[in-house]
């Protein structure tokens, strides 16, 4: 388990699939907050960059037993000891897990674009810049100033809006605090969710909402058998959704 227990910080997320309406507000907020580039034609989903993908799930039955659900999937910031699948393989240390926070970062200006991390990630949470990023005017003037844009030929992924963590830390420092209050740092997707299906916080803090939800009997993680130890938990009371979370023989 990564994260500094002594420091008491290990950021994670809980997503209540039963509450998610599939409105995609999280995905759009993520795209805008993190200056994720897009193309005029985004029909090829294997080449479009979507840090927060929303999967449409169904139980495979026809009406009236048919059930549908939506599963938002950011980078799961795997907590595998000693290294997550992606950082372990990067030949140039362009992606690392910050052991103070447990967040898996990516340094685009160091990335050589070998895509080994993409191949190693079983969640398809990493994206390659197949084209030069371009924004139609006047969208260039609406880019988030705290997030650098990426260039063609490098990989990028969800950072859990780590720039917001930096801003929150700076604010706390100015106010003479070393600790952040709960809810002071939240990613854009969590903030944007109208159904309050996403909860973010410190999983090490047993009083935090996110830690309590992660311990719910309805909580599960994706592909637990692989031992990747994702720090994104899901909640659902529906068995068929939980069954879709992992491979079972």
């Amino acid at each position, binding site marked *: 388990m990564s994260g500094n227990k002594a420091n008491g910080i290990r950021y994670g997320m809980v997503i209540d699939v039963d509450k998610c309406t599939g409105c995609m507000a999280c995905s759009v907020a993520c795209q805008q907050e993190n200056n994720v580039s897009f193309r005029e034609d985004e029909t090829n989903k294997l080449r479009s960059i979507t840090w927060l993908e929303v999967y449409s799930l169904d139980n495979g039955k026809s009406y009236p037993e048919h059930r549908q659900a939506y599963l938002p999937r950011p980078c799961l910031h795997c907590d595998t000891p000693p290294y997550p699948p992606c950082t372990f393989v990067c030949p140039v240390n362009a992606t690392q897990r910050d052991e103070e926070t447990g967040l898996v970062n990516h340094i685009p200006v160091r990335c050589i674009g070998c*895509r080994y991390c993409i191949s190693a990630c079983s969640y398809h949470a990493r994206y390659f810049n197949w084209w030069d990023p371009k924004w139609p005017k006047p969208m260039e003037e609406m880019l988030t100033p705290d997030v650098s844009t990426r260039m063609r030929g490098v990989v990028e992924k969800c950072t859990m809006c780590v720039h917001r963590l930096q801003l929150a830390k700076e604010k706390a420092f100015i106010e003479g605090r070393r600790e952040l209050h709960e809810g002071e740092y939240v990613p854009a997707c969590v903030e944007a969710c109208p159904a309050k299906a996403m909860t973010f916080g410190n999983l090490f803090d047993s009083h935090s909402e996110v830690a309590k939800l992660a311990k719910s009997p309805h909580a599960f993680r994706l592909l637990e058998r692989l031992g990747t130890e994702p720090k994104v938990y899901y909640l659902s009371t529906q068995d068929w959704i939980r069954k879709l979370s992992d491979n079972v023989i």
Partner: protein
Amino acid sequence: MDSALIPEGVKRCSFRSFCLWLLVIFAVIGWGVLGGFLVLWKGLNQTGLNDSFGFGLYITADLAVIALGAGAFFTGFLTYVIGKKELKDIISLAVVVGFICYTGAQVVLLLEIGQPIRGWFSFWHPNVHSMLTEVIFCITCYTIVLTIEYLPLILENRQLDKVPEFHFFSHNLHEIMVVFAATGTFLSFFHQGSLGGLYGVMFARPFAFREGFFIWPWTFFLFVASAIASGPALTILVCMMLQGITRKQLVKREAISLLAKVTGYLLAFYLVFKFLDTWWWATSTAPAMGISFSEFYQAPYGIWLLIAELGVCGILPAIILLTPRAREDDVWLIIACVLNCAGIVINRFVFTVQNLALPVLPFESLEVYVPTWQEWAPTAALIAYGALLLSVSYRYLPMFPRERELNPLD
């Protein structure tokens, strides 16, 4: 026109025929350069790769030629370290083939990375835990060793050899070749292995992941074994092909027979462990990850790939190569070597493409990878580059020391 450059006492085709042949080669290389230029200029969007297939034809081709280039280090090991003198007939050819494979692979690797200008970052910011770092370091070092091994042959060119400094330098390099052969063996062992480790360490990819020994997954050792089992087969094939094209006996049959016999034993050795690995993976590793063996084989990447790799291109060539009468027959020997080489290409293909095609999340589906011409062209150019270097080396360098003795001019 170029007779002054041709080794003494041997016969070569006319300069005109040679130029016509080079024209064909340059046409293919030109096609590859065009494809490669488009990839560098416009980006990897020119390829069939996507976020599911981070690796594709370029990596498959790289892995395959590097494995097939193992004939250089293994023949060098047998010749200089073990002392199999009869292989001295074929060692120069093995070195040229190895040099072609490694340098060609490095050029294709440059196309494969999204930021080729940052290629040097691998040396500047190395992640010591990454198998790819080990691959990059070992391949670079081994290419230098291969260049040193190739250099004496170049300096033995009729005109260059007239320069006393070149003559002595080349002679002295020959004397200490055992050092480079041993260094090459060490480096090649690790990089062939780390190419296997590249896949075996992907613990979130059930098709590729393998348990192992210490820090190395079993694929590390299997890739070494498969490379030394197939590399010499390519050396034999190239030698037989050159003999067929030139209609001359270029090496003594004993050298080819010995290499074929060693290849047969190595292939059998590899297959034993590969079958054990496949059995353990199918019955233990994959089920522990919640995946059944049959789920790994979905059309178009069906079970036929496994049958082709281990049966048709594994057991069959091993039987042929282990049967003295069969391996002494040129036709059977060529069939066995072709199958052996094809088997290694299939192995590298399944680890690269089939591995990534398979969904891991239960609600995702299988993807199919189709390379574009911008991927095929540089791959074809890699083969053409091999033909170019072999043709030039054969024409102007004493690549086969016994050629004059075996083919006396009237």
